[in-house]
């Protein structure tokens, strides 16, 4: 019974944390002399109010989920991929190039090739830091972040030069964007809304990533390397290869996210000079979604929908109650902070339970360990 309650509490913890973040957000709204109930009603309405709103939420959730799936793989392999933004961009560039140039083929084939190109583009952009980490011991956090910067400038160069929309090239405005994809090369819509096939692909991939991680030898190796590279090497696993593979796959999913943005939402690439202009920061928010989902591919689905809802609903809220857009950003930030903090609470509770379980298992003297934390807490408190 006790155990069930514990499990239930742990499962609800992210929800509780989200509500707590909204409560703090309510205080901020009160300071702005806005009725929080009205504001949050608008938020809910904007995210789930009607089929269009819900479709928008899912459209926003799709890239978060795809990036998040890659994050599940890389973080499970103990490689930290902060390069989702860059990987999305490169994936999108490669996919767009295929979509604009292979116009002689049937639509479904070009779309498939484009998605594959996006996958490959992201894989290359993730694989480079992977190789640097595995074989030259370059910290992947630094290298992936720097690869983001390179990707942005590459995108800016390509969209202003070689890949610019031929129509724009003749105009004085020279807006840095590619030509529009022809209708047959776009991802089909699922309902009379903006919801596109990409969302379905993402959900199917979530199931596949789950199978990959827990039901294949490849996933087993990635997880083993992530848990203990020494033990993995000892067991005959080529550790470096799987480090590269974890980052490469992670990048590939981000690349696919970039491709679906072009083929399902915008139908062209356009840059405002920054990476978020194209990605909507999905490369970063996907990390949060994956962490929110406990690095579990299937739980990342609801996590992505939640963040998608916040993004879409916040727009509506902003319009209805006339709050500055900075508040929306702050609200998103609050949710992240609270959820990450709740994770710490969950871990602490888990450690406590484990200390107990360990004692039950008749094991080496845990009292010393428990004593340690007690003292540390005492010191921290003083």
């Amino acid at each position, binding site marked *: 019974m006790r155990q069930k309650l514990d499990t239930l509490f742990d499962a609800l913890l992210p929800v509780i944390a989200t509500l707590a973040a909204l409560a703090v957000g309510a205080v901020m709204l009160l300071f702005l002399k806005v009725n929080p109930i009205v504001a949050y009603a608008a938020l809910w309405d904007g995210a789930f109010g009607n089929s269009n709103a819900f479709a928008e939420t899912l459209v926003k959730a799709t890239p978060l989920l795809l990036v998040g799936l890659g994050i599940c793989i890389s973080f499970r392999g103990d490689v930290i991929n902060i390069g989702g933004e860059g990987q999305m961009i490169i994936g999108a560039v490669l996919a767009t190039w295929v979509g604009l140039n292979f116009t002689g083929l049937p639509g479904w084939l070009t779309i498939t090739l484009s998605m594959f190109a996006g996958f490959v583009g992201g894989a290359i952009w993730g694989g480079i830091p992977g190789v640097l980490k595995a074989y030259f011991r370059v910290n992947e956090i630094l290298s992936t972040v720097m690869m983001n910067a390179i990707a942005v400038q590459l995108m800016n160069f390509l969209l202003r030069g070689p890949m610019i929309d031929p129509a724009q090239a003749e105009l004085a405005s020279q807006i840095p964007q590619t030509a529009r994809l022809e209708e047959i090369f776009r991802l089909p819509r699922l309902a009379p809304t903006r919801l596109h096939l990409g969302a379905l692909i993402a959900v199917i991939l979530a199931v596949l990533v789950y199978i990959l991680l827990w039901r*294949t030898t490849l*996933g087993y190796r990635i997880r083993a390397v992530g848990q203990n590279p020494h033990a993995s090497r000892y*067991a*005959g696993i080529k550790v470096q290869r799987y480090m590269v593979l974890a980052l490469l796959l992670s990048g590939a999913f981000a690349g696919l996210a970039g491709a679906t943005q072009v083929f399902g939402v915008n139908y062209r690439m356009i840059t405002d000079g920054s990476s978020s202009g194209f990605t909507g920061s999905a490369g970063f928010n996907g990390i949060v979604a994956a962490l929110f989902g406990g690095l579990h591919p299937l739980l990342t689905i609801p996590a992505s929908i939640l963040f998608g809802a916040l993004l879409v609903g916040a727009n509506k809220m902003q319009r209805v109650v006339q709050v500055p857009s900075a508040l929306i950003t702050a609200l998103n930030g609050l949710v992240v902070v609270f959820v990450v903090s709740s994770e710490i609470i969950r871990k602490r509770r888990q450690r406590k339970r484990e200390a*107990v379980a360990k004692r039950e298992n*008749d094991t080496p*003297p845990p009292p*010393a360990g428990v004593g340690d934390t007690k003292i540390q807490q005492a*010191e921290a408190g003083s």
Partner: protein
Amino acid sequence: MTEQSSSKSEVPLIVEMRGIVKRFPGVLANDHVDFKLLHGEIHGLLGENGAGKSTLMNVLAGLYRQEAGTIFVNGEPKVFSSPRDAIQAGIGMVHQHFMLVPSQTVTENILLGLDDPRFFLRLPEYDAKVAALGERFGLKVDPRAKIWQLSVGEQQRVEILKMLYRGVDVLIMDEPTAVLAPQEIEGLFVTLRAMIAQGKSVIFISHKLQEVSAIADRVSVLRRGVCTASGVPSKGVSRQELARLMVGREVVFSIDKKPSNPQGVVLEVNDIYAENDKGLPALRGVSLNVRAGEIVGVAGVAGNGQSEISQVISGMRQCKQGQVLLNGDKVSNRNTLFGIQHGMAYVPEDRTHVGSAPNLSITDNVIMKNYRKPPISHNGLLDMKAATRLANELKTAYDIIVPSVSTPVRLLSGGNLQRVILAREISGLPAFMVAVQPTRGLDVGAIEGVQRLLLAQREAGAAVLLISEELEELLSLSDRIYVIYEGKIMGEVKVEGGETDEGLVDVIGQMMTGTPLDQIQKEGAVAQ
């Protein structure tokens, strides 16, 4: 075992614990335990891992509150709600894991948390105090040294000084020898005796019989939270008797071993040169061989190249020169996978960092070496049902005590974890096995189990290379012993009949300190 009455003796009781009960959810750690400490004695507290020794002492040190029972200090009942209370009552504990700030000096660590230097630190003044205190108890440490510069033994001295500086009369040492080298253990014993001479009392927690009978005046034994012996004079009780009190059944100290019947050479190490992690030469021309159906020991003082030999053999470390042959195939300087696929099993020294992945389940850990082939996987897809079945089979066969095979192995005790590793290695039916310190840190019952498994391998016709620092273990298990010193083999001796022979131990001892066997034999011949 009856309680030896001490209340009638003239020596006053300094601490008395009566009927202590401490429960953790699902486990009774201390079940009405009585404990009496005499003034000026070293009291050994024995028990297997998880017997409740540390729990009892954590209650005494004020870290835990007992649920029932009373603590008397000098005859007065006391209630401790924090370690500070216990220290004020004169009771201090040195934990197994030190609690020191590495970047601070010895004096700074000792003053940590005290009110005495109120605002200005005036360190030199306190340096002198600390030095004087150390002098008094024979605890030599430079007060100005930073903690990270000190050896583990010296750090332990700082912990003891910390308690002495706070004026404790009763010092609880929790498994103090677990982290120390043999010479340091001797030093610790000297210190403890010096403290007794100055009127302090010591409680010495350990699961090592030898140490307790060497240092303690009286011994108490705990088993599964119950006191099975209370205050027995250590002179009047045999080691076998203590062992029986600890584990509740007779422990066979000399293992019956059938005469060896070695077959052909399985492993051949030819003139290996290799470097250690720091890039210094660790192995300098090591050659040895192991035949099927025998256990070959490698003896030596820690750090003379034993780890490196096992790593070169298993493929975890590159060698500069020479080669290792397994049934004629070269395995050195190759991927670890090659050895695994050619029948090599490896029980590494470091169970938690190399031998297992702590956060993964028992199932995930036992398939680490055979997940590549059926029945565990088919064309890259894992069959988790088959894996779980295998894990459950091994759990039963190897007596791994755990509720479920989905438990992460970090929650297992040392003995259980070692059984998981051995189960994995042995179930692969290896032709050759290298085991490094397979019984280190395990309690008596677990040691015996592991040793039996190794002997079973030998009887099944496998070649076993046993690298150990426990000479007794090597003598009772091995058929031949190589002795290594500074990366060179000093010589090879045969162990006949498993009986410990004084002359043999003497020869091995000389080789362990750097005298080659041929030189010993030459001198022997001259003497005759």
